[in-house]
């Protein structure tokens, strides 16, 4: 777990503990927790952590923002915090000020492409856009004949078909048909769709790692409470070894995600080293979500399969987060190609450079 040695994470954790307690949320069938949580996060300036003061944000460092996302994962936070942070970050790259309210980024998959025409109008379709339905604005990355542009778009100008991911969060299809943005500016050199996907992928990796930390925590606790065959199930070696494996998956996810976050926070540009770190984090965290989440369910037995139990808030969300900003399969192919092009004898130097 990333120690809350910074004020951003401390503030966030206090808000999550007060207003995003997983059991309270899980009991609340009317989603009445959402508005107060979002309001508290907004008042603390957290959704615009990555936006400089002069563009309307709170100007936190990349590192603090990443630590905040890890904390959000530990609470399986289901409001568009990560999405608004990413949108604010993207807009800030082109020096576009962030408006108030929920935002998300378009596209959210490396395979979707938005285009911009000579009149500055945006067109294209993006699937699996997280929290598009809740967003007031979109930060859009678009391709035109002059290169890549970044645009702020009013959500009411865009057609959004609602959908849900496996974690029951909104994951919607967004269609832009010659939409005029509120603002559009050229993306600076070095910021393109791959950059956005790597940033998004690392955000999701940190959230998955956080969710796994919590799954380990509640699984260990449950195993020390639940009695079967006249003893606590934590005393069975089979259960112990399963939990040790869950700890391993949680550890791998945490190490991969925090390493990638550190790499991006300290990088001057997104070279092969950052690519290795960010792609690896998404791949390894996605694998851990499957393996680790599976063990957490196995330890809990039937109770963990009920909608009343909080486990699914972590396990299903971690699985859903695998799909955003490029799945592990996608990144594995891309990373494999990168390694192949560099050649066999350049593989170890790349790994050792980190």
């Amino acid at each position: 777990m990333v120690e809350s040695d910074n004020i951003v994470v401390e503030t966030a954790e206090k808000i999550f503990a007060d207003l995003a307690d997983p059991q309270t949320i899980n009991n609340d069938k009317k989603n009445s927790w959402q508005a107060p949580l979002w309001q508290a996060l907004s008042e603390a300036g957290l959704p615009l952590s990555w936006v400089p003061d002069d563009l309307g944000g709170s100007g936190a460092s990349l590192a603090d923002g990443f630590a905040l996302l890890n904390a959000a994962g530990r609470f399986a936070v289901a409001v568009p915090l990560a999405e608004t942070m990413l949108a604010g970050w993207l807009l800030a790259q082109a020096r576009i000020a962030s408006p108030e309210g929920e935002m998300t980024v378009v596209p959210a998959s490396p395979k979707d492409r938005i285009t911009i025409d000579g009149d500055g109008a945006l067109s294209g379709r993006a699937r699996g856009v997280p929290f598009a339905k809740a967003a007031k604005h979109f930060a859009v990355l678009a391709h035109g004949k002059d290169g890549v542009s970044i645009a702020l778009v009013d959500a009411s100008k865009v057609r959004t078909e609602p959908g849900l991911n496996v974690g029951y969060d909104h994951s919607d299809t967004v269609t832009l048909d010659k939409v005029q943005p509120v603002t559009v500016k050229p993306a600076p050199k070095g910021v393109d769709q791959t950059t956005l996907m790597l940033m998004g992928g690392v955000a999701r990796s940190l959230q998955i790692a956080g969710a796994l930390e919590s799954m380990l925590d509640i699984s260990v606790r449950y195993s020390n409470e639940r009695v079967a065959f006249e003893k606590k199930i934590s005393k069975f070696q089979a259960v112990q070894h399963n939990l040790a494996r869950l700890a391993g998956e949680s550890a791998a996810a945490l190490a991969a995600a925090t390493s990638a976050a550190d790499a991006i926070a300290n990088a001057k540009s997104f070279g092969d080293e950052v690519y290795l770190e960010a792609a690896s984090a998404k791949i390894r965290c996605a694998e851990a979500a499957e393996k680790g989440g599976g063990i957490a369910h196995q330890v809990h037995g039937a109770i963990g399969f009920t909608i009343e139990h909080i486990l699914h808030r972590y396990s299903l969300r971690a699985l859903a987060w695998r799909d955003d900003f490029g799945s592990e399969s996608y990144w594995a192919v891309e990373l494999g190609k990168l390694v192949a092009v560099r050649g066999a004898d350049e593989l170890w130097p790349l790994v050792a450079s980190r």
Partner: protein
Amino acid sequence: MTAALRFDPIRLPEKCEQLRKEVRAFLAEEIAGGTFDPHKPNREDTDVPEFSRKVGARGWLGMTWPKKYGGQERSFLERYVVTEEMRVANAPTRRFFVADRQSGPVLLKYAPEHIKMDILPRICRGEICFAIGMSEPNSGSDLFAAKTRATKTDGGYLINGTKIWTSSAHIADYMIAIFRTSPPTKENRRHGLTQFLVKMKQPGIKVNPIGQITGQYEFNEVVFTDHFIPDDHVLGEVDGAWKQATSELAYERSGPERFLETYYVLTELVRAVGPNPDTRSAEGIGRLVAQLHTMRRMSVSVAGMLQAGKEPVVEASIVKDIGTVWEQQLPHRVRDLAAFVEETATNRETLERQLDFAIKTAPKLTIQGGTTEVLRGIIARGLGLR
């Protein structure tokens, strides 16, 4: 929170990169000079005394130890770099690896001064080889069931019994072993074992080679018959060996050797696949590289925490658990992908030969130096389950 596992994103300091260049240049020279072939992990000549002395001359053995014992007082992160570069190059480290990683640190902590002054500089010069005498025919993972007796006699102890699976005992100059000096007590079954420094190639010690499924003979049975060990060769507390296995185990468990043992097959696969892999090969390689990178970052993180004086015991056990499982599966995953390599790949035979050896090596990786089951027990204890 029950278990706050920590894996800080530690980076190797700049001076490590200079050292890495020196190690690579040295290894390239040795390869060019024919000392060893990096493409041959199954070489017969794993004991190369000359190479060992050259590594010593560079100051890369005992490099974290005090200068008065021949060390360099460098950091564990610098040692980490030397270890990983040697491992990736398939360098013949057998002669010095155990002494450098394990035996030297034990001596530093528990040996009397005159023994330290005698032996440690020779380890640093790459002159002597160590073995570890833990397992016995009826005591493997259950270390504290050891029965080989050390009976008090005038000026020392007489040793009787058998150690087994002892790597390098046939070439070793010394062994650090545990022997039974007292029976276990009712309250503490771990009581009664004492750690000793054993001088090999002496009367009363017989080393019998044991063939392995790889075709190699690198571990042994070591039979002691009234072998005499002087009093000053006792390491630490008599009957108290169980107290002495503490944080150094973390170094032993989390080093690069815990996930790089079969790495060569991945390099060779990338070479065989070439610059334009099909989708399946690219995906397979990408996953393996992501897993490798993650392992290494975990391992470096533990090394950095140890260097900073922390004791990440559970984290180190996790690194060894998932690292050894990974390096065990690696040859099989590479084999899956090698099925699609073009017939025309120029290194096809090298890859096949390497896979043949790696697949035969794989079963031992989750057994040696603490089985997966033992490690998971340690992790479970750290999680508060036992």
